């Protein structure tokens, strides 16, 4: 638990909220909704999204350690290697026509199976696992540092 008094906690949370809402509401406040949309905003509205999705893809993969094959695709950690296999099973249920992009989904389990096949011995795997979780991973470090996946047990 934090040492902050309650009012400081409240201010911190409120500032975070204010900053978030400022970034969300600003375009709508600055541009008048009564007049027709300015051509520049219309152009940006048409041209920006594709760039944003590219940006978001990079944003999601920003902490991937690209230099470490074959785990590079799996966030560079052993844990991720097994758990993203589970994630790849979840992902095809995405309601956005998964059928067209099925090669994308098929590629991941294949690669995971290959990397599991080449997996080092059990003890070595565990040591490597704990060592690697300390490094940067593509998502936030969870509270649990010990690998509990079915491969490590």
């Amino acid at each position, binding site marked *: 638990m*934090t040492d902050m008094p309650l009012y400081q906690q409240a201010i911190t949370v409120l500032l975070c909220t204010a900053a*978030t809402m400022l970034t969300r*509401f600003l375009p709508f406040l600055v541009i008048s909704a009564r007049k027709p949309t300015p051509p520049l905003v219309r*152009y940006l509205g048409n041209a920006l999204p594709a760039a944003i999705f590219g940006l978001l893809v990079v944003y999601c993969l920003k*902490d991937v350690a690209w230099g470490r094959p074959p785990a590079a695709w799996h966030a560079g950690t052993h*844990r991720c290697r097994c758990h993203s296999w589970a994630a790849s099973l979840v992902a095809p249920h995405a309601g*956005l026509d998964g059928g067209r992009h099925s090669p994308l989904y098929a590629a991941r389990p294949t690669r995971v199976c290959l990397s599991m096949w080449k997996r080092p011995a059990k003890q070595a795997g565990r040591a490597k696992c704990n060592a690697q979780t300390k490094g940067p991973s593509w998502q936030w470090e969870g509270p649990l540092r010990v690998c509990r996946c079915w491969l490590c047990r």
Partner: protein
Amino acid sequence: MTKGHVCWRALLAAFPYTTPILAGFAFLGFAYGVYMNVMGFPFYYPFLLALVIFGGSLEFVAVSLLLAPFAPLATFLLALLIQARHLFYGLSLFDTYRGLGWKRFFLIYGLCDETFSIIFTAKRRLPKDVDRGWFMLWITWLNEGYWVLSALLGGLVGGMLPFDTTGLGFVMTAMFVVIFLEQWLHESCHATAMLGILAAGGSLALFGAQSFMVPAMVIILLALLLARRPLEQRYATPFSESEAAGDGGGRQGTAVERGVMR
């Protein structure tokens, strides 16, 4: 059709689009709740933070801000930098959110990465008989609900069960890749998609994972503004014909007025 019927119909239409978010947010939100619980916060903290801030990455950062010494200015600036990408969402959806009355407030309030992506993808194939405003509002509320409830659940259950969610957040990456590909297949010109990837990748290589977002956004915006002349024709296809006709008429009108003025 009664009002309740419109609302219900839109919910039914919106739910399937939010299922990938349900999968992702259930795990991420739960992990967030567990994380705060392990850090020693009572269960209502993740719930309240999820409710008022509603922005995944900032909420995780907020935990460390709460644990660190009190620094209001640094907190505000950091939050602004992390959330700056929302400016782009507002710009992109400005036309889409036009004329929706009170729904607009909630739509903008809950405009997170995932909601933006889903709304942008879904509005192309929205059936004619579904109310557009309710549909987008339900997508926003459903996503927000998934996140807040799973954060509450994680905060309640907390450290009781050994549960490792690392890697399950990859659902989100998979979803963004799919949306990116879908956008790619829909558009006739790939210039800005390439621009997004290249600017973000280059800025990531230059500035590192912690601080690449803002430079990448600046690069994208500058490039789009500089290349407006060649790109504007290619990206002139609006979302629906009626909007285009209405605006075209309006623009013509102003041009005529300008001519009269001169």
